[in-house]
């Protein structure tokens, strides 16, 4: 059974903390994505990666960075968490040629 696993379902962090959101896929997919989802705004792309050590900015990269040291793992980093980064974060992966995207269960992050 194919899987994308996000390290936490719920996370509460304090303003200014460095936050790591981890995503692991077991399907040997080349492409991995981080989205955030907010009410009324849908899913917005933060960063994506086509391969190991490669990363590209999405539509809303400000305040975020990413790391992809291994093919199966794509990490989202909030360098200094702020309250406006309170959101649902979704990780997804796809194979090289675009077919369906497989999503993790989501991490609901609250920054207080």
């Amino acid at each position: 059974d194919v899987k994308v696993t996000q390290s936490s379902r719920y996370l509460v962090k304090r303003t200014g903390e460095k936050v790591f959101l981890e995503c692991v896929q077991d399907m040997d997919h080349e492409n991995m994505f981080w989205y955030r989802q907010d009410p009324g705004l849908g899913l917005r792309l933060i960063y994506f990666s086509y391969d190991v050590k490669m990363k590209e900015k999405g539509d809303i990269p400000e305040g975020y960075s990413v790391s992809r040291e291994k093919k199966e793992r794509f990490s989202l980093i909030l360098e200094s968490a702020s309250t406006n980064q309170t959101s649902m974060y979704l990780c997804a992966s796809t194979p090289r040629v675009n077919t369906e995207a497989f999503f993790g269960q989501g991490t609901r992050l609250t920054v207080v």
Partner: protein
Amino acid sequence: SQQGEEDPQALSIQEGENATMNCSYKTSINNLQWYRQNSGRGLVHLILIRSNEREKHSGRLRVTLDTSKKSSSLLITASRAADTASYFCATDIRGSYIPTFGRGTSLIVHP
């Protein structure tokens, strides 16, 4: 930037009725996909239709694609309470292979 937009934003129907959701997009695409999201969960893929296809079926789901109008529709027949969820269309701008999502349609099916 949002490539696809779903319509309506919210839909409330009775069990047994059909539910129709629409998606419009802006630029040429490789394919269009529909996803479902139960409350507070990740998205689950429902169906993919390629740009050279006009209609596709999967169980109670029927998807149409009109590339001349840059629009697609998702029809759920004989809806059930368990179909209550948000539904999203996703497109990829030709050549990019990046799934870009709309804001979704929230469907409530009353038992």
